């Protein structure tokens, strides 16, 4: 079946603008994660959604970052007033029930803030 999809694949924006990144998880997966990967680095956890529970936002680096998940499916990560240090690849992953198992990753959105 279809995997995790993300859009856009690439985004170039100017400093100070807002951006929205979208993630479509695998159908039926209740858990959804956002990670950020800066150049040459590992993945940094941002936020986690599980079903109807309150999301774990502990990884969001500042209040300019927010995310929502509508209807338990699609998620949008919003970065307001982007800064150059926000440039990174933003990766979304999902898994069936967050039982600490395999996560299925999307191809990522490469964000460049000029």
């Amino acid at each position: 079946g279809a995997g995790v999809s993300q859009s856009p694949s690439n985004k170039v924006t100017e400093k100070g603008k807002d951006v929205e990144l979208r993630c479509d998880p695998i159908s039926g997966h209740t858990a959804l994660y956002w990670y950020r990967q800066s150049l040459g680095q590992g993945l940094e956890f941002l936020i986690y959604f599980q079903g109807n529970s309150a999301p774990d936002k502990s990884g969001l680096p500042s209040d300019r970052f927010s995310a929502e998940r509508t209807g338990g499916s699609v998620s949008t990560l919003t970065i307001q007033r982007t800064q150059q240090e926000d440039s990174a690849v933003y990766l979304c992953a999902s898994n069936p029930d967050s039982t600490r198992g395999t996560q299925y990753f999307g191809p990522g959105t490469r964000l460049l803030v000029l």
Partner: protein
Amino acid sequence: SQQGEEDPQALSIQEGENATMNCSYKTSINNLQWYRQNSGRGLVHLILIRSNEREKHSGRLRVTLDTSKKSSSLLITASRAADTASYFCATGPFTGANSKLTFGKGITLSVRP
């Protein structure tokens, strides 16, 4: 903070040779996973080993886990040029409802044809 730390940071081998990559972690875990990433895009899950397991095989992959040393190794046998990628270990937490994974910085593997 990084939980998993991979070693070496970069590895270059000849096609046909075996590649061994190591990962160390700091806190108790439920499981440890290895992922591969090509060209800085999405990660592909390779193998998961649970804390009560010591060794696991999948095709040309062999993973070991030593919870007393808080370390794991990934062995790729008979490497191929297509194995060239970055490899990450990730740990799943022992407790808590959040199954977020904590990743290391990765190992860059180059397999020369």
